[in-house]
């Protein structure tokens, strides 16, 4: 029998058919079942979304198809690609399929690309290996492929190494690599999860374009149902290793068979102003005052050269009333995390003042600041990394009390820890575990308990959701909203995604390259964003609507923030702005007041056309 017939006329439908495919792992604690008897088919040119929480088995399912399971993994059942069985094939046989007929894109392009080879050679290697091209011809093809995935300046990029590229650019290279041998099926495993919303939209737009132009079947594995809605023809929802339903996107959104399915959809359907937080109480006294805060990072340049200064935060002024919540939104590298760290005095600013309840934090003696710390708490992006892996959960949560309530007896502290754990929805018995034994959502709850046990008045949340699954995100948002209500917390919420902050925050501040772009009450910001950058962020939000979303993706503009070491003159956003004029390059726009509480830094906000919100048709 010939392995993979060359004659494509004889290709039976479907392209990929899985029947009773199961995956188990042999571990020291016995056999673990990751996937149970999955039946699934992908037609030629079709886009199938596989949606589910982490641990649902969606990645293992396709690793089994491509024969890339870990050594202790076993697959059974059948996976037929163009009628040929893939399971049980030798590595040599599979190599003629993997990379050649089935392309793969992984979540983390940094670890999926070889660090010591320039990207051009990595792509060319696939052409040489699978198509027998000469290296010269293969390099020319690699350049065409890079252009096809919209890598700007492809000729130069060919010779760059993965570490020299931005995250979005790396993912484009990864896609070019997967496409190099002209596959019929592309498997993309969480291709946009590690990316900013804007870059996610660009990558999704690229995948949509490829799917339409290249007769490419696409399997898109993701935890975010919203992200695939505009792309997938059909969606299969996975949970606990099983497929719980398979249907078209429209059908799944309108009448899901399983209520679980809709929990995979980001709840904040953006653009509905009514869902936003209540308007701030007028003229409350400011609890937190930040004025003209500027933070630099020195970039060392060898022993004798003077270090460069990277301006991470540039002249930011803001106020936060007691009990009020402010969201800081922008792409990675915009300085939002640096800003909140400087507010908490975890970083020293170059200039500017931070005052909490009228007391200036920067000039305060260290002892006084330490005594004030319980009022100002923070939770971090990576819940596991923010917990000390060598401490038990109850030690972690009780740590603040050990420092600030020394007179407390061990028993009283234990009781406080248990009640703090219960308050964040964890069983007190979890206190005896270690962080690595918990799930991501549980770790984040532990981090919240560690902060809340000190009864803070300001809780800084630094991207606390972006490492979590959609259902877990919603639980954490609900928890934070509840804590905010009960304790009258001030929240300073950092996120790259406008949608996730909507339920929590009364005001939104948009930042770009260390500069503030727009500040507005949340309802106003979501209904009528004035700044072109805010509008770009809004357009990038995935909309769970198969009718509207493809057109929105088609409008997505390529572009990434420039290096903060060489920011554009005048308005820093002008290099990406669709409306930039000469004046934008010449002068820095003033921080103007549009209406009460609404400020903007844009020369042209008066003349620009109004932004129209798009309302999803299918979901309420």
């Amino acid at each position, binding site marked *: 029998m010939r392995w993979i017939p060359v004659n494509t006329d004889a290709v039976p439908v479907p392209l990929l058919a899985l029947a009773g495919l199961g995956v188990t792992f042999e571990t020291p604690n016995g056999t673990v079942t990751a996937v149970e008897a999955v039946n699934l088919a992908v037609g030629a040119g079709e886009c199938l979304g596989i949606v589910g929480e982490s641990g649902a088995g969606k990645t293992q399912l396709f690793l089994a198809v491509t024969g890339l399971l870990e050594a202790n993994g076993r697959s059974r059942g059948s996976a037929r690609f163009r009628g040929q069985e893939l399971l049980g094939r030798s590595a040599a046989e599979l190599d003629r399929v993997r990379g050649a007929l089935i392309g793969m894109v992984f979540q983390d392009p940094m670890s999926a690309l070889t660090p010591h080879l320039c990207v051009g050679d990595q792509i060319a290697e696939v052409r040489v290996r699978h198509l027998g091209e000469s290296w010269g011809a293969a390099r020319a093809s690699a350049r065409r492929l890079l252009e096809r995935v919209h890598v700007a300046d492809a000729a130069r990029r060919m010779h760059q190494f993965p570490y020299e590229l931005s995250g979005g650019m790396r993912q484009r290279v990864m896609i070019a690599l997967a496409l190099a041998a002209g596959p019929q099926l592309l498997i993309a495993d969480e291709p946009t999860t590690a990316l900013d919303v804007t870059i996610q939209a660009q990558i999704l737009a690229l995948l949509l374009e490829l799917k339409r132009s290249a007769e490419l079947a696409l399997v898109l594995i993701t935890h975010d149902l919203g992200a695939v809605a505009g792309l997938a023809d059909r969606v299969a929802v996975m949970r606990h290793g099983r497929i719980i339903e398979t249907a078209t996107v429209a059908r799944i959104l309108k009448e899901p068979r399983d209520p679980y399915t809709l929990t995979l959809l980001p709840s904040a359907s953006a653009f509905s102003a009514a869902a936003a937080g209540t308007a701030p109480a007028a003229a409350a006294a400011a609890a937190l005052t930040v004025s003209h805060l500027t933070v630099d990072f020195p970039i060392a340049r060898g022993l004798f050269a003077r270090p460069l200064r990277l301006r991470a935060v540039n002249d930011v002024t803001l106020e936060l009333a007691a009990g009020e919540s402010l969201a800081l939104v922008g792409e990675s590298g915009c300085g939002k995390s640096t800003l909140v760290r400087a507010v908490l005095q975890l970083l020293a600013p170059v200039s500017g003042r931070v005052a909490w309840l009228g007391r200036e934090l920067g000039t305060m003696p260290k002892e006084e600041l*330490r005594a004030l710390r319980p009022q100002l708490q923070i939770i971090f992006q990576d819940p596991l990394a923010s917990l000390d892996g060598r401490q*038990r959960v109850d030690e972690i949560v009780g740590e603040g009390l050990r*420092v600030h309530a020394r007179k407390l007896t061990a028993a009283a502290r234990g009781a406080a820890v248990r009640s703090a754990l219960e308050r964040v929805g964890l069983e007190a018995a979890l206190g005896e575990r270690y962080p690595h034994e918990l799930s991501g959502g549980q770790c984040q709850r532990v981090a919240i308990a560690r902060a809340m046990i000190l009864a803070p008045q300001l809780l800084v949340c630094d991207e606390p959701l972006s490492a979590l699954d959609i259902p877990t995100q919603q639980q954490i948002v609900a928890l934070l909203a509840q804590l905010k209500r009960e304790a009258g917390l001030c929240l300073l919420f950092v996120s790259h995604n406008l949608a996730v902050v909507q339920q929590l925050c009364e005001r939104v501040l948009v930042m770009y390259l260390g500069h503030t772009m727009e500040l507005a009450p949340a309802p106003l910001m979501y209904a009528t964003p004035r700044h072109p950058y805010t509008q770009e962020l809004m357009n990038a939000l995935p909309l769970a609507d198969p009718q509207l979303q493809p057109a929105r993706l088609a409008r997505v503009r390529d572009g990434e923030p420039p290096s903060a070491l060489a920011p554009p003159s005048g308005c820093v956003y002008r290099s990406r702005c669709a409306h930039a004029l000469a004046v934008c390059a010449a002068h820095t726009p003033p921080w103007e007041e549009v209406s009460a509480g609404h400020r903007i830094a844009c020369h042209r906000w008066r003349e620009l056309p109004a932004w129209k919100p798009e309302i999803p048709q299918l979901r309420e």
Partner: protein
Amino acid sequence: MAEGSAAALWNLAGRRLGARRAVRVALTVLALIVLVALVGPRFSPWGFDSLDWQHLAQPPSTVAAHWFGSDRLGRDLFVRTLYGVRLSLLISVLATLVSLVIGVAWGAVAGFSGPRTDGFMMRIVDVLYALPYLFIVIILSSLFARGSLTVLLVTLGAVGWLTTARIVRGQTVSLKRREFIEAARALGLTEGAILVRHLLPNLLGPVLVYATLTVPQMILFESFLSFLGLGVQEPQASLGNLIYVGAQEMQSAPWMLIVPAAFIVALLVCLNVLGDALRDALDPREY
């Protein structure tokens, strides 16, 4: 440091270690050698420096209870070798402890301090590294009593802590950027408390591995110094000077070389197997 965390570390590492046969063999051999070294000499009628004029340079046999034979002066090799094992192990373990205490403190403080203190402290390490240690040893041993145990410990420790300091400093620098350190600072812990409560426990794994691999190095180094006549002096026996004497008699009395050499090889292999396995068992990627 909390007992709970240490217990978990040991449980996890212990379970992984126990699962490997090479480790079980190495541990058994090591325990046997230590046991024999401690109680073995009691069963022999000879002391480590008693002379038996009737049996000079006798090959191993049961005659006159010279089980491993005797040397040119009629001293019993069984007893001398076991005394040598004791002394070599004692010196190497103590020297490792000395180098750990200095190295961990120096490296952790350097890594945790600002760039200026860090640079200053690590340049001192660089300078000390650059000095030829053998030269220092010769000076030290000519200034003080030759073969003094203290001098030997100071010498070995002085050389050993430099590498420990570098390893610990590297670990500290990467740990201090982690978010849990920032979280501790936001909780209001003092820098000292962060160092003790969060940094040191997390350094424990790599340091332990390094220590296990340092002990055999120290045994070798001590033997080397004794071989050169700079270490343990006759009639005291260490594995190093036994091998030195044995090497001179290699052709006429090969057992004088083979017996101590076999012990040193067994010790080194066991300790290295243990160290490697410990490194795998404590690998943070396995969490």
